[in-house]
């Protein structure tokens, strides 16, 4: 049906580069260790590094040579492996989705990275082409879609529909309200702690304490500028990552594409959607915005974890969610009216936070005296947080849908269809039992974690209602 093909030669360098990066710490260690002893040992360790480096390059080229793919008898057949030769045959109709990524290197050569996903939950069931020409990618796409159409009897021709495209102001709001700043700051700290050996901190900060007392203002300004810079950098990273975010709905898929430097395109089959998660961090909640994720039952390999929890709408006004998505997701009730836990649950929410916080507060007041009083702020924040958790908790049953809402730090609403829930738990501990409260937990399938939703301290009767709704057993009239 078609000849064996190879990936673009650049792949050999990409593979080698990735491997070199993995063993880089090893290089650095032996160079430093060797360099300390004498010139000779430095030379030897340099030699060893060079040999390993060349070997890595060679295996990179070899693995590129060995990786071939072809379409044969309605299967995608891949052969690869340098030392252990492997063959992987994927029936075309089992292919669930094809995702594209264009990294910097791929863009420079007009190439694209293609990942082919199948239904199975195991990592083995997928194929990654790290760099092929766009025409080749197009060919693969066509092969797969013709194969799938042959097996499908009816095909309704439908126009592709643009569901969402992010405007510049939305991109700005997204970046401003994202928590990326924390990541950047910790990266900077990590970097500095790594440089420990190179920068003589001791010398620089010798007379630190006296100096610091004199220049406390200056230090605060520097720290502030540092934070500000970190925030600006994170702003740019978010903007580059999510620029040009568009969602298009075809006959049976969502096609999501985004990114400026690294362009990504993902296909999510609508019928593989397991649940919808609406997340609002505190900033976004205050201005009425949220992020919408879909939990999809893709294959869950480690590098693929992000994609099992796909961002469908990175930033959206809450009241726009339903109008945008209702047509594509007709089964879902996107604006559930939630029922809160009863009033008597409030102090359980508060006490649960106090169990953790009060010992900390007491200990710090005991040991730190006056400064320890600052921990009272923690106490106040914790209590407010607990009240928020109580206020945000809720549930809703509507037809075949169970909606649960809870807050960790971010407020999360999870919408699940009955036939997508894998199992359901209700639990009550001793204290809950006394107050006629309970906890409900529901699980859906996804490639990785995050496939779970739980609400604590709901009315016991409500919990039983949900349990009964999920149960296939007819409730007996006489049962008390």
């Amino acid at each position, binding site marked *: 049906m078609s000849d064996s093909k190879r990936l673009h030669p650049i792949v050999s360098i990409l593979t080698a580069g990735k491997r070199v990066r993995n063993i880089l710490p090893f290089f650095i260690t032996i160079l430093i260790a060797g360099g300390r002893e004498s010139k000779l040992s430095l030379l030897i360790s340099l030699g060893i590094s060079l040999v390993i480096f060349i070997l890595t390059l060679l295996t990179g080229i070899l693995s590129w040579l060995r990786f071939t793919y072809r379409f044969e008898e309605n299967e995608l057949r891949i052969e690869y492996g340098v030392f252990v030769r492997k063959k992987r045959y994927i029936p075309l109709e089992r292919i669930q989705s094809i995702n594209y990524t264009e990294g910097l290197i791929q863009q420079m050569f007009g190439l694209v990275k293609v990942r082919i996903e199948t239904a199975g939950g195991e990592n083995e069931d997928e194929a990654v082409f790290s760099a092929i020409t766009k025409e080749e990618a197009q060919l693969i796409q066509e092969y797969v879609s013709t194969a799938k159409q042959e097996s499908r009897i009816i095909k309704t021709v439908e126009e592709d529909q643009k569901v969402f495209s992010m405007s510049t102001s939305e991109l700005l709001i997204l970046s401003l309200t994202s928590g990326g700043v924390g990541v950047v700051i910790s990266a900077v700290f990590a970097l500095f702690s790594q440089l420990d050996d190179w920068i003589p901190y001791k010398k620089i900060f010798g007379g630190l304490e006296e100096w610091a007392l004199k220049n406390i203002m200056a230090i605060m300004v520097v720290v502030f500028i540092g934070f500000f810079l970190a925030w600006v950098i994170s702003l740019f990273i978010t903007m580059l990552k999510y620029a040009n975010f568009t969602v298009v709905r075809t006959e049976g898929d969502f096609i999501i594409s985004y990114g400026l430097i690294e362009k990504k395109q993902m296909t999510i089959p609508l019928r593989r959607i397991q649940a919808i998660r609406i997340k609002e961090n505190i900033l976004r909640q205050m201005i009425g915005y949220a992020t919408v994720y879909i939990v999809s039952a893709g294959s869950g390999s480690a590098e693929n974890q992000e994609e099992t929890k796909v961002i469908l709408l990175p930033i959206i006004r809450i009241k726009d969610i339903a109008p945008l998505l209702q047509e594509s997701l007709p089964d879902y009730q996107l604006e559930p009216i939630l029922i809160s836990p009863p009033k008597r649950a409030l102090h359980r929410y508060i006490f649960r936070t106090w169990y953790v916080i009060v010992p900390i507060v007491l200990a710090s007041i005991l040991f730190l005296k006056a400064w320890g009083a600052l921990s009272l702020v923690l106490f106040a924040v914790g209590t407010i947080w607990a009240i928020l958790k109580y206020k945000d908790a809720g549930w809703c049953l509507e037809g075949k849908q169970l909606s649960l809402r809870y807050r960790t730090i971010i407020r999360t609403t999870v919408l699940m269809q009955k036939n997508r*829930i894998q*199992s359901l738990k209700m639990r009550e*501990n001793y204290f809950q*039992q006394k107050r006629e409260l309970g906890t409900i937990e529901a699980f859906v399938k996804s490639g990785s974690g995050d496939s779970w939703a739980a609400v604590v301290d709901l009315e016991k009767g409500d919990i*039983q209602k949900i349990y009964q709704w999920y149960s296939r*057993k007819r409730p007996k009239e006489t049962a008390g």
Partner: protein
Amino acid sequence: MVLNPQKMISNKALTVWRISGIIKSLIGWAVTGTALFLLHIFDLPFWISMILIVLGVLFPILDIFVIPMLRWRSYRYEVREEEMELKEGIFTKTRTLVPMIRVQHVDTNQGPLLRKYKLASVVVHTAATAHIIPALEEEEAEELRFFISKLARAAEDDV
């Protein structure tokens, strides 16, 4: 209104859990003994040793006598045509519903202790979760596994 599942697991489970409690305690004592010896050598305060000794008495009592009994008494299960229901937990009582159409596969497991007493545990897997019925009679476990996989196959449905 919501009926509890009724079936209990084999009462031989009690013996097995007690034996594994004894083994656990023996290992615990070995570790505690070593720790006491070291504490003595390095001349550390006596109250640390005291705490260790108290724990060394308390945990075996719990592991051998209290917990197996409570656990066995509180465990219930029921397998119906369309779903499976479990009830477990001593302090926190948990009830789980698993519809048959969601079951992916069923395993039976048997460690050396369970095998000696002709018991086996049944593990039911869905696409997202795994559920264990511990310590059933061998034949019963085998039957249950067969029964569940038959029902699960009958109710084929997409994920």
